C-alpha cells in the first residue's frame, strides 16, 4: 500500500521523535567561516581572492614553469631543428604536413624558427598538446578538484544566485559553467541537473558559445597574455547579454531551485589524484589525436588551396563585418576540431591588437569543438539545431558589435 504525502510526513515525524535527539547546536568556527563565504558582502571578496589564487597558480605552473621554463626550450631548441633535419623530403607534401609547412601561403620555402610557426603535425601539433595544453589542464584540474572536494562550489553557486537569476538561470548554473572552463563536454553533461528544458537549453547554448575550455585558456595565456583580460571580458559580457535575451525569448519556465550546501570537508588525496589521473588519460586518448588530426586537415586544405579560396570567398564577411584579416579562415576550420590549436595558429598571423582580440573571441564563440558537438547531439538533436541557430545569430551580431566598439574606440576600420 502507499501513503499520501501527509500520512508519510506524519509517520516520519513520529519515527524521528522516537529515534532522533537533536543536541544543542553550537555554531562552530567552520560554520561561521562557511557563512562568510556565502553572504555577498563578505563572500565576494573571498571569491575574488580564490580566483586570484587559482589564476596565479595556473599561470605560475603552466606558463612560467612548464611551458616557458622547459617545453619551449625543448621543442624550439631541440625537437624542431632535429626533426627538420631528420625528416626526409623537405618541401614535399608529407614534409609540409608532418613537420614544417615553411611559411604557409608564401611562395618561398623557409624553415620555421618556432613550433608555433611550423604548423606540422609532429611539431606544432605535439607542442601545442604536450607543451602548452597538458600542463595547463593538469594544474587546472588540480585546483578544480580541490575546490570541488572542499565544498566551495555550491557556496559560490549560492553567492552568484542573484546575478544569474537575471539570466534566467539559478545559481546552480555556475557548476556547469565552471566545469566547462575545464572542458565543455562535462559542462554540457552537467546541465542535466537543471530542471526545465528551457534552462537546460539556455545553459547548453551559453556554454557552447561563450565558455572557453581549459586547453584554450592555457594557450591564450601563452600566446596573447596581454590581451587575455579583454578577451575574457568580451566573453563574460556576451554570456550575460545573450543569457538575458535567451531568457526573454525562449518559451518555458525557469523555476527556483534550492541547493543544499554541503559541509566543508578536508579533501581526500586519493580522490583528487584519481580525478586528475582520469582527466589526463582522457586527454591523451581524446584530445591528442584530435589536435594532430586538426593539424593535418588544415595543412592539407592549405596545400590544396581550399583555405585561401575560403578566405577569399569569405573576405567580405571577415574584413567587412568583423574587421579581421581573411587569413583567419584557416584557424576557424581548425577550431572545429580543437580550439586550442586554432588559437595557436592565430598567433602567427600578422594582426593588430584589436584584430587579435576579435579573432580569438570569434574562434571561441563561432562553433563548439567536435567533442562538445557530439555531447550536445546526445542531449537531443532538436536542441542542437536550435543552439546552432542561436550560435549563428550570436556570432554575427556579437562579432559585428565588437567591430563597432573597435571602430568607436578608433582601433578598427
Amino acid at each position, binding site marked *: 500500500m502507499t501513503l499520501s504525502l501527509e500520512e508519510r510526513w506524519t509517520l516520519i515525524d513520529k519515527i524521528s521523535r522516537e529515534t532522533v535527539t537533536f543536541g544543542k547546536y553550537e*555554531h*562552530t*568556527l567552520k560554520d*561561521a*567561516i562557511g*557563512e*562568510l563565504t556565502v553572504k555577498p558582502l*563578505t563572500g565576494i*571578496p*573571498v571569491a*575574488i*581572492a*580564490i580566483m*586570484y*589564487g587559482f*589564476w*596565479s*597558480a595556473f*599561470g*605560475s*605552473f603552466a606558463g*612560467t*614553469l612548464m611551458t*616557458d*621554463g*622547459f617545453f619551449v*626550450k625543448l621543442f624550439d631548441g631541440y625537437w624542431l631543428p632535429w626533426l627538420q633535419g631528420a625528416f626526409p623530403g623537405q618541401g614535399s607534401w608529407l614534409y609540409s604536413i608532418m613537420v614544417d609547412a615553411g611559411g604557409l601561403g608564401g611562395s618561398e620555402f623557409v624553415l620555421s624558427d618556432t613550433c608555433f610557426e611550423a604548423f606540422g603535425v609532429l611539431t606544432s601539433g605535439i607542442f601545442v598538446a604536450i607543451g602548452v595544453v597538458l600542463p595547463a589542464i593538469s594544474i587546472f584540474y588540480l585546483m578544480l578538484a580541490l575546490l570541488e572536494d572542499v565544498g566551495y562550489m555550491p557556496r559560490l553557486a549560492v553567492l552568484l544566485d542573484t546575478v544569474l537569476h537575471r539570466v534566467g538561470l539559478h545559481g546552480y548554473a555556475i557548476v556547469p559553467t565552471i566545469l566547462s572552463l575545464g572542458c565543455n563536454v562535462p559542462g554540457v553533461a552537467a546541465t542535466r541537473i537543471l530542471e526545465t528544458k528551457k534552462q537546460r537549453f539556455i545553459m547548453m547554448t551559453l556554454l557552447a558559445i561563450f565558455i572557453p575550455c581549459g586547453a584554450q585558456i592555457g594557450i591564450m595565456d601563452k600566446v596573447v597574455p596581454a590581451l587575455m*583580460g579583454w578577451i575574457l571580458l568580451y566573453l563574460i559580457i556576451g554570456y550575460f547579454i545573450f543569457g538575458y535575451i535567451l531568457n526573454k525569448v525562449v518559451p518555458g519556465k525557469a523555476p527556483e531551485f534550492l541547493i543544499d550546501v554541503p559541509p566543508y570537508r578536508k579533501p581526500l588525496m586519493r580522490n583528487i589524484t584519481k580525478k586528475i589521473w582520469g582527466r589526463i588519460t582522457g586527454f591523451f586518448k581524446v584530445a591528442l589525436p584530435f589536435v594532430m588530426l586538426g593539424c593535418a586537415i588544415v595543412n592539407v586544405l592549405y596545400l590544396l588551396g581550399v583555405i585561401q579560396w575560403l578566405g577569399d570567398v569569405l573576405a567580405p564577411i571577415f574584413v567587412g563585418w568583423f574587421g579581421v584579416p581573411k587569413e583567419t579562415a584557416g584557424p576557424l576550420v581548425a577550431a572545429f576540431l580543437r580550439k586550442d590549436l586554432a588559437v595557436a595558429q592565430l598567433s602567427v598571423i600578422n594582426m593588430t591588437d584589436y584584430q587579435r582580440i576579435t579573432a580569438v573571441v570569434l574562434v571561441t564563440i563561432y562553433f563548439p569543438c567536435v567533442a562538445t558537438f557530439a555531447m550536445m547531439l546526445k542531449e537531443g538533436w532538436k536542441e542542437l539545431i536550435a543552439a546552432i541557430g542561436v550560435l549563428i545569430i550570436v556570432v554575427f551580431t556579437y562579432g559585428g558589435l565588437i567591430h563597432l566598439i573597435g571602430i568607436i574606440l578608433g582601433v578598427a576600420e
Partner: protein
Amino acid sequence: MTVQSQSQLQSESSSTAAIYFAILGIVTTAFGLADLLVTAGGAEFVYGTAILEIPNDIFRGGWGGLVVLSAGLFYLSGAKNIGEIHQFAKVAMGSILIWIMAGSDIFAMITESIPGGEDGSWFNTLDGFLAMYAPPYAPAVLLLPFSLVVLYYIYHRD
C-alpha cells in the same frame, strides 16, 4: 552567573587578541591601499632597505591589492568583540586571504626560480635559484608570519 563569569574570562584573554588583530588590520589595510595606489600610479615601489616591494602590474598589484585590502578589512571588522565566534571567523578569514595571497606569491617565486631562463641551461644555477628568494618581498609575504598568529587562537579557543 556562571555564564557571565565565563564570558568575562574570555574577554580578558581576547583583549590582547583584539588589539593585536586591530593593529594587523590597520597595517594590512594600509598595504592593500598602497598596492592599489602604486598600481594606479604605474611605477614600482621599493622601500629603502629593500624589504618591501609593492607590485605595480594590474594582476598582482591591482587584483592582488584588492585581496590584501579585503583581508585588512576582515581583520578590522572582526577585531571588536573577538571572543564571539562570528567575529573570530572574520579574523580567521582575513588570515586565510593572506595565505592565499602569500601562497600565490611564493609559488610564483618557486616556479620562476627553477628553470634556467631563455638562454641559460635547463635548470637555474644555485646562485640564481637562491637569489629569487632574497628580499624585497610583496606585502602579503611580509604579512604572512603575523597572520599565522590566528592559528594559536584557533587551537586555544576553548
